[in-house]
């Protein structure tokens, strides 16, 4: 038995500590936001926040989480009261099939918790570990820019001018 803090609430789960956090979230806690994509930390569909940092939950043994708090896309708002990132993604219609989006939103949340004024390059670098097979990357990036602005910041273009 172990205690796991997920989206602000403590849950008691009875699992092998080597079980990936993703399986516990989905199978034991019924949180189906984070997805199983590749199971190899290569696609980002399983991304959740652990203490404000985006991690691949498919490769994080649940026993390694310890006292750290886990945030999934469900923790950022609800269908009736979506959070700012969720509203930004809706506004930009950033989802096509939507499979990558919970991971994308978790990743963007991690970035914006670090800074609401990332540079364009920092934003792209932060989002890069999550892949979208539909190809809505440009809309996803627009949504992140929009959310940064909603939080009083914005994404800064950092490249130097060519003379």
């Amino acid at each position, binding site marked *: 038995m172990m205690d796991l803090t997920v989206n602000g609430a403590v849950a008691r789960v009875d699992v092998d500590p*080597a079980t990936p956090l993703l399986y516990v979230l989905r199978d034991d806690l019924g949180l189906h936001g984070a997805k199983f994509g590749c199971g190899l930390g290569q696609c980002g569909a399983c991304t959740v926040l652990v203490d404000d940092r985006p991690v691949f939950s498919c490769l994080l043994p649940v*026993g390694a989480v*310890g006292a750290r708090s886990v945030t999934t896309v469900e923790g950022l708002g609800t269908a009736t009261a979506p959070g700012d990132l969720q509203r930004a993604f809706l506004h930009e219609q950033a989802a096509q099939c939507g499979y990558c989006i919970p991971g994308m939103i978790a990743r963007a949340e991690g970035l914006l918790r670090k800074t609401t004024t990332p540079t364009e390059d920092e934003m792209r670098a932060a989002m890069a570990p999550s892949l979208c097979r539909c190809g809505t990357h440009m809309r996803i990036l627009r949504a992140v820019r929009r959310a940064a602005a909603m939080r009083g910041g914005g994404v800064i273009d950092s*490249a130097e001018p060519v003379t």
Partner: protein
Amino acid sequence: MRTGLKRAITALVVVVGVCVVVFAVIAYRPAIAEVARPDPHAFDAGLVQRGANLARLGNCVSCHQAAAGRPYAGGYPVKTPFGTVFGSNITPDAATGIGGWSPAAFRRAMREGVGRDGSHLYPAFPYTHYVSVTDRDLDAIYAFLMTRPAVRAVPPSNTMIPPLGFRPLLAGWKLLFLRPKPIATDPRQSAEWNRGRYIGETLAHCTACHSPRGLLQQEKRGAQTYDGGWSGGWYAPPINARSPAVRAWTADRLETYLRTGLSRDHAAAAGPMGPVTYNLARAAPADVRALATYYAWQMRDAPAARREPALPDRRSFATQRHLDGARLYEGACAVCHEPGAGMMVAGRPALPLGTPLHEDNPRDTIQVILKGVRPPVSARGPFMPAYGDALDDRQVAEIVAYLKMRHGTGPAWKAIKKDVAAARKEGE
């Protein structure tokens, strides 16, 4: 008595005065007149192309490009025990780059470490190696740089500890450590070997990372050359007879590694070596082959060159000793690294072959776990996710200890957890 004191003071003043004058004479370098930015179309295309190849062999862009900056516009932080030096803007922008530099000013900078304005440059810029580059090659690199897009960018100011912000002091460093090292052809060796030595010892400046450094950050020469060194918080292992690799670095294997960023008998290029292979993959294949020939020769007496050892899997023993590490490995690593996993089927190096596990310190194993591996050469290359945000210091240390015990060779590593914290700090 009073006269004696006066004399002593006078003598001291004279001695100090003479020292100051002598030092000023030694340290003084005149400015070289500024020229109008050369017309990029005036350069011979063949010369520019040769320069492009040489710049790739020299990995210039690694230090002369910031993480989010434009190529050659500078800004990469080189951290030294004496402070941080930022790569300069070497695009032909007249105001912030080297657009106003004549070929003579460029040659002097490369050979003597002196800027166009006469100021001494920090040896983070490896002029101790460029001193032996031929005029012909320097002119080709000049032509290449002068035909790049000019970028207006000023890198951050260096943060050197006092008094090292006073650049004339560097003249003293140069007196001690800047030695012209003529690279004469060795008639006993092949033309390819000689070409490899010329590139490796000059432009490619491999020893800058792969040799230990002394108190004043000078590279240790002689018997300690290529004995392993440090770069950006990573360990650059020995590439001589002390190479820790458990499979021989033949010229063929080394050529593949340098051109693809991956040797299936050793490891993927990670950390600062990734960009090196990125550039070598885009350099002239014959030159990379020459480098491989020369450095395979450097490692000809390494243990694995004589006999490739069997690699026992001490799985149950390691699990008993490091149960936490074994469990973490099971959940975080095994899905890719165990025999039969998808990654193994794709021809990636098996964990027991990984050179980091056979090094005399845990740093590279730690860094690979913390930062992962990005495809070094092209998008299809080897990839490993970073665990720096997922695992804490203790957990990383547990996995490292487990891996060393299960697959590693050489003496056990000590104080691993402390080194995880240090690796995080140095990697910032």
